[in-house]
Structure formats: C-alpha cells, structure tokens
C-alpha cells in the first residue's frame, strides 16, 4: 500500500500540465515515478474511481481525477457508493480512521 504516492500522482495531475501530458502520452513511464503496488497501478489505469476511494484517496483529489475522465457529479458519487458495497469500508487515510483507533 502506498496511498501517499497514489495521492501524490493525482495531486500532480490536477495541477501540472506537464504531468497531465505524460499521463496522456506515456502513462507507463509516468507511473514508474511513483511507488505504487499492482492494485494501485491498475486502479489508476482503468480508472476505478470507486476503488481509489476505498483505498483511501482524499475526495478533494479524487473528484478532479474523476472529472478529468468525464465523470458527472452524480456518477462520481455513485462510483464511490458502489465501491463501498463491493469492497467494504475505506481501508486507509482519513476516511478509514473512523473504524480504527483514533488518529487524532
């Protein structure tokens, strides 16, 4: 699990046209810059917005990644809700902290 690097990739995609261009033209090379496991790489490639949410990606990053792939607002919310049903609760990060020991 390298939630930090999944989020870092989305952060840079959201703000940096050069990263976006590499994402569009040579995603293989781009992904090697981040310490991602197979499940993470696959979720980014599909993209599986719902699974990324379950992995713990922050919505403030994820909603822009979804928009980049043409998700309308309701579709974006729906993808996350469906993934919760399919995969269970959020595994890590802030949203995952509710079910675990306090992180505060």
């Amino acid at each position, binding site marked *: 699990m390298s939630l*930090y690097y999944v*989020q870092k990739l989305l*952060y840079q995609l*959201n703000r940096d046209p050069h990263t976006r261009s590499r994402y569009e033209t040579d995603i293989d090379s781009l992904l090697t810059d981040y310490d991602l496991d197979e499940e993470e790489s696959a979720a980014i490639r599909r993209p599986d917005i719902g699974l990324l949410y379950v992995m713990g990606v922050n919505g*403030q*990053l994820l909603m822009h990644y979804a*928009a980049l792939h043409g998700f309308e607002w309701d579709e974006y919310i729906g993808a996350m809700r469906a993934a919760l049903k399919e995969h269970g609760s959020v595994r890590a990060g802030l949203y995952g*902290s509710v079910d675990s020991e306090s992180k505060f």
Partner: protein
Amino acid sequence: MPLVFAGVVSHGPGITGRYERADKELREALYENFYRLGAELKEARPDVLIVVAAEHFANFFMDNMPAYAMGMAEYYEGPIEDEQWLGIKRRKIPGNAQLSGLIVEKLLQRFDLAYSQEWQFDHGIMVPLNFLTPDYDVPIIPVNINCQGPPLTPLARAYDFGRELGRICAALPERIAIVGTGGISHWPATPDSGKINESWDREFLEHWLSNDRAALTAYSDEETYLAAGQGGFEIRTFIAVSGATEGCTGELYFYAPIPIFAVGCTVARVKLTL
C-alpha cells in the same frame, strides 16, 4: 489602522459549478447575501483583502505541508480547477508582494508560517472572490491554514494566529479587510456529499457570532470529524477571523443547508468596533 472590514463565507465549488441544480429560491438568497457582503466590502474601500482560506491540495501537499502559509506574490492565478467544472473563468488576480512581505516578517516574530510566491487559487478562494470582488480589482493576500491533512494546527492556535494578524494590520497605515472562508459541517467530495449537520453548524455559529474564544476552541478534531465531517476542520478559518476581531460580535446574513452545494451555506459579517 484597525481592520476596515471582516466577514466569513462558504466556498463549496458547487456554489458556482452546480448552481443550476440548487433550489432556485435558496440559491438566489445566498447569492444576494454574497453580493451584499461584497458591496459592503467595497464601501469599506480596502487597499487589500486578506483571504484566510483552507485550500484542498492545490498548492500544498503532504510532502511539505505548512500549518500556516501566506502568499507573497505580485499576482496569483486561478482557478486551478477546470473552468467549466467550477463555473469560473481562469484569470490573474492582483496581489501586493510588498505588503505581504511586511506582514510575513512581522508574523514570523511569533508564528513560523510559510510564504509562497507562486499560488494557484482553488475554489476555496475563487468562489468567494467571484461574488465579493467580481471585478478582481482588490489586491488579495491569501492565507492558508491546513485543514485537509491531519495533523492540524490546534484551534486555539488558529485563534491566536488571527489575533496576531489583526494586531499587525492595525499597526499598518493600509486599509485592510479580512474574509475567512470554509466549513461549516460538510463531507465534501465523498459518498456523504450533501450531508449537513445543521444543529452543529448553528451552535458553532452562535459561538462565532459572540466571538466566544473558549467555546470556539473547545472542539476536538475527532469530535469535529465525527459530527461535522472532514469539511468541519475548516472552522479554523472562521476562528482565525474571530481572533483578528477579538471583542467584536458578528451578524449572520445567511445560513441554509443546500445539499447540492454540499455545505451549510453561510455569509456573515463582523460588526467591527476595533
């Protein structure tokens, strides 16, 4: 001179990006109060507007996250988001590097804040400016308080940061206005988007309107997260404005939960008696 204007507003991206999906009457009442606050801001003839914001991983990320940061650029750009998604056209926004530098220097005497000479405003600043200074003719000094990635600055520290900022502004000759933008309760960009804890919001607003430092700073992050969502962390921006206007009460212009805007939409002004 003392601050010439102070207020707080919401900034949810849906306010401009999904405006057509909101209840028309509520939306128009919100917009009207946004513009009312903007008109009053204009009447105060500010030389600069300090916007205390809670940005959302647009410029500051967890590789190097400052608890507090202030812009120190001649100009800024925004929105960083897709123009159509946010419903706000990308543009340059004037800053005031010289005055920012002076304020940063003075703040550093007591607060180890970061400064930034390159800052792309996200919806957290662009949505308020879209209504308050729609001509983008007032130089902006942005402040960011990290409200996204815990660990977060303590609420009492946010109040004291605001107090120090207000004290510094009061000693400067410029006419300075301040607007805080954030919260209150919301679960932005999650499956719970649209959920709003109105009773929690109204209780918080009571504390804010009476500038009750003890009550404002008594929340723990855990109880805020559970009762008010991640978006609840953004109360720090409101609290900083309370600190900057210590001793002054506020007036609530508008509050209503608007689920498609994903937040209890708020417009309020501080009755300055500084």
